[in-house]
């Protein structure tokens, strides 16, 4: 199967065939060739229980199930698209509204931020604007992520932690611990901060995806 192909930095061409279906953000289709059908999907490949959990968590964006035979072009709001291939061994953590398209073969899940660091995780989710839940993708397949200004991959090593601005964080994968570090001092309190008061520290081994902007989607 000739995987996902970038036509421009903001447009993605995805082959669809019986047995190789995809889920995409609803309304993100730009054009297609062949005979392809789009059906709104509330479960996005999850079980009913998972879907209800996501709805309750607010970690949900409307997805659609793309089936048939052909090539479909996807894009959204002029945002940059990046393709991430998962080989089956690791899990991608990403916000639901940054997900443009993913293979139906990937398992979608929801992770409670409290699972990573308890109360601290909840605080982190609130501060970074990620909310209390984040989406996980596992399995073998590809997905397309949305970002403002394109993404850069930064490798994370055990002796090589990376600090990221929470607003510029897009996704990460691998065995990564994240921790919110603060550098809030007297200067921040009197309104003369450097604008870098909160940082996400990622350590372990994996990859973090960072966008060239501090804008949320």
């Amino acid at each position, binding site marked *: 199967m000739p995987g996902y192909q970038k036509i421009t930095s903001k447009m993605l061409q995805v082959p669809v065939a019986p047995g190789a279906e995809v889920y995409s953000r609803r309304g993100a289709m730009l054009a297609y060739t062949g005979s392809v059908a789009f059906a709104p999907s509330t479960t996005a490949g999850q079980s009913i229980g998972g879907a209800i959990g996501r709805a309750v968590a607010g970690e949900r964006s409307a997805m659609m199930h793309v089936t048939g035979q052909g090539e479909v072009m996807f894009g959204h709001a002029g945002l*940059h698209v990046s393709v991430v291939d998962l080989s089956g061994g690791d899990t991608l953590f990403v916000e639901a509204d940054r997900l443009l398209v993913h293979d139906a073969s990937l398992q979608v899940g929801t992770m409670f931020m409290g699972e990573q660091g308890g109360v601290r995780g909840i605080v982190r989710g609130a501060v970074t604007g990620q909310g209390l839940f984040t989406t996980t993708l596992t399995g073998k397949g590809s997905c397309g992520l949305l970002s*403002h*200004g*394109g993404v*850069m991959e*930064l490798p994370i090593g055990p002796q*090589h*932690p*990376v*600090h*990221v*601005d929470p607003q*510029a964080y897009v996704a990460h994968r691998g065995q990564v611990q994240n921790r919110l570090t603060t*550098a809030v001092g007297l*200067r921040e309190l009197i309104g*003369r*901060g*450097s*604008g*870098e008061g909160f940082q996400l520290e990622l350590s372990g081994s994996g990859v*973090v995806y*960072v*966008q*060239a*902007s*501090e*804008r949320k989607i």
Partner: protein
Amino acid sequence: MLAVDLAGETIRALNGAMVAYEGRMAFKREGMTGGEGLRGALKRKIAGEGMTLMEVTGEGTVYLASEAAEVTLVQLTGDTLFVESESLLALEGGLRTGVQFIGLRGMGAGQGLATTKVEGHGTVAIVSDGPAIALEVTPETPLSVDPHAYVGHHGQLRQDVVTDVNWRTVIGQGSGESVQFRYQGHGLVYVQPAERGGILEI
């Protein structure tokens, strides 16, 4: 996006422009005067040419970006770069900044009364909406640019405003190109492929 390798040096960058870093870094907002002295700070206040920079010090790599804008690097060897304060992303620690009054002609371009000048030896990173191109100006080939697409310039240049306002502009039937900056002399002008909104729609 811009990656800067630091080994103990200091650079100055737009406040809040860090998106990621590796290694050990410290971020500190510059004082009220921003290294321009009390007079410089007062001039900046009067001119409304606001600029908030932070000092970045440390060892490692820092990644800087702002609103998905394109980054252009300009090497200065003792000459002066004129740039809008909002187009400045980062500069090497050894460079000096100051305010240059440009007079009333800045009003039409939405630039305000003053612009920022950077002088010394080192590298400056400027941001633009879309990739900026550098257009060369020689005495034989003067250059006219749309004030809304102008990003910055350096070299021995004289700046004039050319207006072509006639009755059509007055009744709202203008071509949208009634005011232009005209550069003469020797130097480079940076132009972006997008037009900023100005105070006056001319």
